[in-house]
């Protein structure tokens, strides 16, 4: 089922790339339309899965990736409409396509442990997924900032200079995306801790829950992520770390997020998956 959104995301990615190269407004509108269709199809898929398992399908890593891509697409569409800038699409869509391939080709079964049947858990995962989507946007905004910064600084006004929004706008959007992401990351982590405490008391025999600690890779890396983004938020407001420094921090933060999201979920962790 996740194949249809994947195909539409891929089509949108191609059209965004053509728009970036050719800069024709009509091509840009087609790209946005395709992405809207992809997001709609994806909403439908997630809606169907929600009805099927009676909760938002995020307990299984593959489905969580699908939900992440969906949130990323929606956040990007919001950004595009708010800023009236389409140039970022070519940087965001490849992430969406690459990640959506996972649920499309290895769907996984949403077969949640009864222990997860708590509103705390859903808030925990949904907040984190939304935070990660914001961080993905921030990272791409940072990347484009650096690309354009280099061209202006080195006085080689070339490909990106003619296509990207101003440094000021990229920096401001990066700041906002990091701020929103950081807020949801904080909510997600706090709720996770609260829920873990409750769940441990309720189900003392669950080895998964008992094993959770800071040594546990997924939790450790999540806290590392929180540390990086907290520093970025703090450094921007008090130390004047804007522009290139903030851009690199966003990229670093998102690299850690991806690390936590994919390899750690699939290969390292044995217990943060409840199946």
């Amino acid at each position, binding site marked *: 089922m996740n194949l249809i959104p994947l195909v539409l995301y891929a089509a949108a990615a191609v059209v965004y790339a053509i728009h970036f190269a050719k800069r*024709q*407004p009509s091509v840009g509108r087609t790209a946005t339309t395709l992405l809207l269709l992809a997001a709609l199809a994806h909403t439908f898929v997630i809606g169907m899965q929600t009805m099927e398992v009676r909760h938002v399908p995020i307990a299984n890593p593959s489905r969580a990736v699908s939900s992440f891509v969906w949130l990323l697409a929606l956040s990007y569409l919001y950004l595009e409409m708010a800023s009236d800038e389409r140039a970022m699409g070519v940087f965001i869509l490849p992430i969406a396509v690459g990640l959506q391939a996972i649920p499309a080709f290895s769907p996984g079964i949403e077969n949640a442990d009864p222990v997860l049947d708590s509103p705390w858990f859903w808030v925990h995962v949904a907040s984190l997924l939304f935070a990660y989507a914001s961080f993905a946007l921030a990272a791409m905004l940072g990347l484009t900032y650096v690309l*354009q910064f280099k061209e*202006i*600084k080195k*006085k080689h*006004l070339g490909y990106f*200079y*003619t296509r990207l*929004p*101003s*440094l*000021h*706008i990229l920096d401001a959007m990066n700041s906002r995306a990091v701020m929103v992401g950081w807020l949801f990351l904080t909510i997600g982590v706090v709720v996770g801790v609260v829920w873990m405490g409750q769940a441990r008391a309720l189900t003392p025999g669950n080895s998964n829950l008992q094993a959770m600690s800071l040594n546990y890779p997924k939790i450790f890396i999540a806290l590392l992520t929180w540390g990086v983004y907290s520093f970025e938020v703090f450094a*921007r407001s008090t130390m*004047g*770390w*804007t*522009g*290139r420094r903030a851009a690199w921090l966003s990229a670093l933060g998102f690299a850690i997020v991806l690390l936590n999201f994919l390899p750690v979920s699939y290969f390292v962790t044995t217990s943060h998956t409840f199946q």
Partner: protein
Amino acid sequence: MHLFLLGVSHKTAPVDVRERLDFSSRDLGAAVEALATRPSAAESVVLSTCNRSEIYVASRDPSRAREDITGFLSEYHSLPPETFAPHLFSCGDEAAARHLFRVAAGLDSLVVGEPQILGQVKEAFQTAAERRCTGPMLSKLFHWSFGVGKRVRTETALGEGAVSMSFAAVALARKIFGRLDGRRALVVGAGEISTLTAEHLRTQGVGEIVITSRTPANAEALASEVGGRAVAWDEAISALATSDIVVTATGSQRPILTRAHVEATSGRRRPNPLFIIDLAVPRDVEASVGDIEQVFLYNVDDLQSIVQENLSRRTAEIAHAERIIAEELVKFATWQRSRSAVPTVVALRQRFDAIRRSELQRLDGKLSGLTPDARARVDEVTRLIVEKLLLEPTEQLKALPDEETQVAYTEAVNRLFRLRTGESTSDAVDAAAGTTRADQPHK
């Protein structure tokens, strides 16, 4: 009806001739009206900018148009024809349409791709249209040229990239800061270059302009001229801390802004980028200032090379623009040919309708038993039959691929139906052409 164009441009006439033939400083509307009284100008538009004065007419007798319009220019500007006639260029029909398309696209401009010309072409047409000096021919031609201008702008990079140093600097500032309103600029030096730059910044919406000079009186004078604020030379460094854009243009032989100066203020200004434009030769700003994070330093050579690059990029787009114009010209020529079929079409319709009416009249007695409602229906049905019979031949006649076939076909139709087409029907022809205008594809 034929198109005819006569005029001077920066390619054919020196500036003193262009100045004497200029209409833009005088009442353009009155000029078009005066021109329209000439016998060879059935429709007329006058396009006058600092680089060109061009007269477009639709004429039934193009052989007389040149002489006629030269006479008009001579009378209107009170100049003997021999003073400007050698500089005139003229062309007709397709060549005239091609010229206007190239002008509207910015291909004929002094700076290729400059954006103002399309607006000027629109204005010229508007003025003539308001005075009722245009008709179906020029109206179609000019509207088509607006479409061509727009297509070239959106489909090619002909108008892209700043092609003067001051515009290049402003474009850079926008790429760094986004909107410029609310930004602060510091102008160091109060000479000619500084004045021009300060004025340019002001028109671009820069919030506050601070001016400093070694001669305080000069700074004061410039500040009051551009609505800025003058500060003493010694305070310039502290003004630097609150500035986003710095322009230097002094005659100093040694750098006046060093890395130490900028670094000293960086504590106060750290989060904000600083864009320094050094317009002085020898340079006013130490080159190493550009190494500071968040400082963008551009000197005269840097800006000049951007301008050169943009110019060569525009040149590379000319071929693309010419292709678009060639395409549009083919479409326009098809429309024009369809117009030459119009007299035949009109005559054909009149003939068929006359037959219909006379037959209805002949049957008048037999139809007298019908109610008025039924009679109206009979009238309607016969009219529809005629319409439908003529629809296909009309379309075919208008869509013939070339001039020769067009002539042969219209001649055949004229003979088959014994039609007489001529000047007497020309008003009806124009009206018919006017009504078909909307059906023609514009792009």
